[in-house]
């Protein structure tokens, strides 16, 4: 019974704890038991803090028993990408170039989740410094995709997506600089929310790009993602994402950026039909649909690449100088590319980013929501990466460049692996984004599919 509860939305789990249906320690033990059974096949966790998590669950139970005020995530476990600080837990950033050190304080986003009652039970694998992967010259091997173990999870929030898709956790924190929340979530059939730029504090997170970095949840459903976002957001920056959830989306206007996918020969053959079906579902829900021509996708990718590679090298130049050979090969080669850029190149990219942002803002004067693909295919097999980094086409980078919020959720399947629908909204309009994403999720059965595990958790009450 407790095992079943692990597969229920966080709000239901919280209600079960508050009603006394189960205890906080019992829920935590069930989560730890499931991780012990399943993670050896996935490899999502790089550090599991079982004792502290059980102690925190015992404290949470006492608080409940005493009738004290509790937050919306009281007693619920979550995981954290290993570039985000968690007090008392070690961090490696997935690199031998970092001496593992126990953080003495939480990142602000983690601290806010703790304030809401959530319990960080461990650190999750990341591609090295959130840069590139998968690679095998890092402290931990890359996690495996719960849908097909010989396929990648995507990254860089690889462990966060794998943990959620594998049912180890309902939600985990990731970071997204060019798609590192959304692309692994899409490859693993999870929900990934990249909030509006600066809606969630980056304090306590190892930086990759000052301009593009964003902290966001990967979760098993839209409601879980929204609940985490609401707890960790900076209230002054963005309203609650959950506030419109469940409201009828009929009458909203949706722009479908179909050209960004349909004309790309690298797109999976099943992708465009899956997206057409998804837009059809949204039309059936009463949204007004129009095809929207967005600026040339390559402009966004070039702009984001120049800004990211310049800022990443700025972050890493000192460490590279001292510990060059401790970096994995793909990571250091990736970083070196930024050295070719001049200050004028970077100014040019920033100028283009401003113009592209204005153009997308203009589109949002016509529509409430934009829709396109998240990635152009399913998760590739590990065998494709044996010779080093491989480009995996996606459509996530534009909304790091412009700072608009974006969410991915499953919309179809190809070869037994998930495909992702990406929705975007105006700056600060996570509520509208989650309203439409939730309505789509409720109208389809994609989120109800789970990878098969031969060891279901069965814990007697």
């Amino acid at each position, binding site marked *: 019974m407790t095992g079943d509860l692990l597969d229920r939305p966080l709000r239901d789990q919280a209600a079960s704890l508050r009603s006394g249906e189960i205890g906080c320690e019992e829920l935590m033990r069930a989560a730890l038991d499931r991780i012990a059974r399943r993670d050896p096949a996935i490899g999502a966790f790089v550090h599991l803090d079982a004792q502290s998590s059980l102690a925190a669950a015992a404290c949470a139970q006492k608080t409940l028993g005493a009738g004290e005020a509790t937050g919306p995530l009281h007693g619920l476990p979550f995981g954290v990408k290993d570039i985000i600080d968690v007090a008392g837990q070690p961090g490696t950033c997935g690199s031998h170039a970092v001496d593992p050190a126990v953080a003495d304080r939480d990142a602000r986003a983690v601290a806010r989740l703790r304030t809401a009652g959530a319990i960080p039970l461990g650190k999750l694998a990341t591609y090295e410094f959130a840069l590139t992967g998968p690679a095998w010259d890092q402290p931990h091997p890359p996690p495996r995709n719960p849908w097909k173990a010989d396929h990648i999870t995507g990254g860089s929030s690889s462990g966060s997506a794998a943990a959620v898709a594998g049912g180890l956790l309902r939600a985990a924190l990731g970071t997204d600089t060019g798609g590192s929340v959304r692309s692994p979530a899409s490859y693993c059939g999870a929900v990934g929310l990249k909030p509006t730029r600066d809606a969630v504090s980056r304090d306590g997170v190892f930086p990759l790009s000052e301009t593009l970095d964003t902290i966001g949840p990967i979760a098993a459903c839209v409601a879980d993602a929204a609940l985490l976002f609401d707890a960790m957001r900076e209230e002054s920056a963005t309203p609650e994402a959950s506030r419109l959830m469940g409201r009828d989306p009929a009458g909203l206007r949706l722009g479908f950026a179909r050209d960004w996918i349909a004309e790309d020969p690298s797109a999976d053959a099943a992708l465009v039909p899956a997206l057409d079906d998804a837009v059809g579902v949204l039309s059936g829900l009463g949204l007004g649909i129009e095809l929207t021509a967005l600026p040339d996708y390559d402009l966004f990718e070039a702009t984001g690449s120049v800004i990211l590679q310049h800022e990443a090298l700025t972050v890493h130049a000192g460490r590279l100088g001292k510990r060059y050979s401790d970096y994995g090969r793909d990571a250091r080669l990736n970083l070196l590319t930024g050295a070719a850029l001049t200050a004028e190149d970077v100014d040019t990219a920033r100028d*283009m980013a401003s113009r592209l942002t204005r153009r997308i803002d203009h589109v949002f004067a016509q529509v409430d929501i934009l829709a396109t693909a998240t990635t152009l295919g399913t998760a590739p097999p590990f065998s494709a990466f044996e010779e080093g980094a491989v480009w995996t086409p996606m459509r996530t980078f534009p909304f790091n460049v412009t700072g608009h919020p974006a969410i991915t959720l499953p919309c179809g399947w190809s070869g037994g692996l998930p495909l992702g629908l990406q929705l975007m909204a105006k700056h600060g309009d996570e509520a509208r984004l989650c309203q439409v994403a939730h309505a789509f999720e409720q109208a389809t059965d994609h989120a109800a599919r789970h990878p098969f595990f031969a060891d279901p958790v069965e814990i007697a009450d």
Partner: protein
Amino acid sequence: MAEYAPSSADAAAFGKVLKDIGLTVPLDDREAALPGALRLRRQARWLREELDRDDR
């Protein structure tokens, strides 16, 4: 954006900028990183052209 074979002048210029920022990079890494670096540079120049066209 199409790749092209880097010239020896490209390689020398890339080696110099790496040295200028204090990085001692083995030759095989310099050679492996160079195509990506040049591609990035061409992307930046293309953005400049697009901005100029936008302004006209």
